[in-house]
């Protein structure tokens, strides 16, 4: 394949940020079909419209997803990207790699694909960008047989779960997010590979409310670590912060002079529930009023730590705007224990209850968050067998359109108009 003229794209080679154009050109030295990636993109820049055809259904035998089919709408002009399918490969929890593994993967992809990748897709998968239909099965064979790796999810199924780095390199993680993500991914392989749901479904696992994997916004079931006893305070370290010997927020704001650390201004007065105060030189926290927002811990990581009675909150229903508006996940279970020793039993039981219900009542292409909106939170809680709690709402309803069940109303709903008329003349 010939080199392409790309005057518009060439402008994106200047500036300090790593240039994807330069990278693709470098790949094109050994894989000339990459010139057609640049060529078709240049054409799109010029025409201001995509040059990929609608949809594409390709895959490997045994699976209903994992590969996103794509065809150029100008194949004669750019034969190198006539087929340009994307392969989703399951990533390791937290995306830790050995160079040996990455070299193996790249050797495979140079052999069967374009050599271009996306590290990683938003859901977490390793994305291998661009190959032909006839390469899919041989690639899949080598991936599974030589690398011991599998495809990720696509379609109306459980998508590839993802997690924050958790206990591997963070002192705030309240449960083992990597183990949870890994073991649930293995447990639900069938649900990942063979679409059986009304629509897509995602898990994400965050170790604390900082939510570094954005589970509350980007997963149907968001598992967010927390604790239910008191924040652990090292008073000696608090003094070091006040004295200016430890940088606030781990030095995150050192790029600008914000003045000397002021614990009152930067921590105590910013606490959303006002549950902190100084008693002489001692920092005090009223644990019963703390909502575990992480701010004080984030500001003074060497002095404050999450409590010891750790677990997670489960929130449900986040989704992007289509169809009826964007949603964050809403709190359903304030606290569960998260233990690898019982294979995350409580969480597994919760997930399967959601699926049993949603697979039955969910409409075609309706995210679980929309199903919840349609039936209402009280109905969802009752099918889940969860007692309503004040923590389930930010505020009580302001309209009076309250439904009652017949058995909750004395005398029921069967009434006789003549009986009413006997006491109240028309």
């Amino acid at each position, binding site marked *: 394949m010939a080199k392409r003229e790309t005057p518009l794209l060439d402008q994106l080679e200047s500036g300090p940020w790593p240039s994807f154009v330069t990278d693709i050109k470098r790949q094109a030295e050994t894989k000339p079909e990459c010139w057609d990636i640049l060529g078709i993109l240049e054409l799109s820049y010029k025409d201001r419209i995509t040059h990929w055809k609608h*949809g594409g*259904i*390709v895959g490997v035998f045994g699976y*209903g997803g994992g590969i996103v*089919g794509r065809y150029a709408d100008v194949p004669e002009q750019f034969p190198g990207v006539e087929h340009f399918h994307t392969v989703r490969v399951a990533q390791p929890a937290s995306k830790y790699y050995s160079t040996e593994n990455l070299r193996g993967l790249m050797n495979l992809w140079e052999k069967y694909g374009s050599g271009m990748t996306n590290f990683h897709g938003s859901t977490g998968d390793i994305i291998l960008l661009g190959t032909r239909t006839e390469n899919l099965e041989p690639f899949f064979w080598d991936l599974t047989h030589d690398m011991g790796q599998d495809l990720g999810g696509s*379609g*109306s199924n459980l998508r590839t779960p993802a997690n924050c780095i958790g206990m591997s390199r963070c002192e705030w993680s309240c449960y083992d997010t990597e183990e949870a993500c890994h073991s649930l991914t293995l447990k639900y392989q069938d649900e990942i590979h063979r679409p*059986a*749901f*009304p629509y897509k479904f995602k898990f994400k696992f965050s170790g604390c409310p900082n939510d570094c994997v954005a589970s509350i916004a980007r997963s149907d079931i968001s598992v967010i670590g927390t604790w239910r006893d008191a924040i652990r305070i090292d008073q000696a370290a608090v003094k070091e912060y006040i004295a200016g010997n430890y940088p606030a927020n781990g030095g995150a704001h050192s790029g600008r002079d914000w003045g000397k650390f002021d614990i009152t201004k930067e921590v105590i007065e910013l606490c959303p529930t006002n549950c902190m105060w100084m008693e002489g030189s001692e920092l005090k926290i009223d644990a019963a009023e703390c909502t575990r927002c992480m701010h004080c811990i984030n500001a003074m990581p060497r002095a404050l730590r999450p409590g010891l009675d750790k677990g997670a909150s489960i929130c449900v229903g986040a989704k992007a705007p289509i169809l009826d508006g964007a949603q964050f996940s809403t709190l359903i279970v304030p606290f569960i224990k998260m233990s690898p020793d019982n294979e995350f039993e409580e969480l597994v039981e919760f997930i399967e209850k959601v699926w049993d219900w949603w697979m039955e009542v969910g409409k075609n292409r309706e995210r679980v968050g929309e199903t919840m909106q349609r039936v209402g939170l009280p109905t969802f809680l009752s099918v889940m067998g969860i007692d309503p709690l004040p923590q389930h709402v930010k505020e009580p309803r302001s309209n009076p359109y309250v439904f009652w069940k017949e058995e909750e109303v004395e005398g029921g709903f069967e009434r006789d108009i003549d009986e009413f008329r006997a006491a109240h003349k028309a």
Partner: protein
Amino acid sequence: MPTIEHNGKSFEVDEDGFLLKGDDFNQEWVDYVKGVEGISEMTDEHVKVIDALQEYYKKNGIAPMVRILSKTTGFPLKRIYELFPSGPGKGACKMAGLPKPTGCV
């Protein structure tokens, strides 16, 4: 768009091998798809799935959700994959002559 010749019949298909015109569906089509979708032998169970898809499509104008297909045929999803290795979308819908599944796949 490519044209496929099989047993003297010709079919207009898209890149993914789905029939462009559902009316072209016939036994030769079934026989052709059988070859490309990893199906060694057609059984009554295959026919039952194909019939269920076509009937639902004729009535509703869309392909049924997976669990409706399972309910009407009585086959769990696992069995459907045993019958159609590419699954109900790429395998069975293609063979039944239904339009290509769309959306965020």
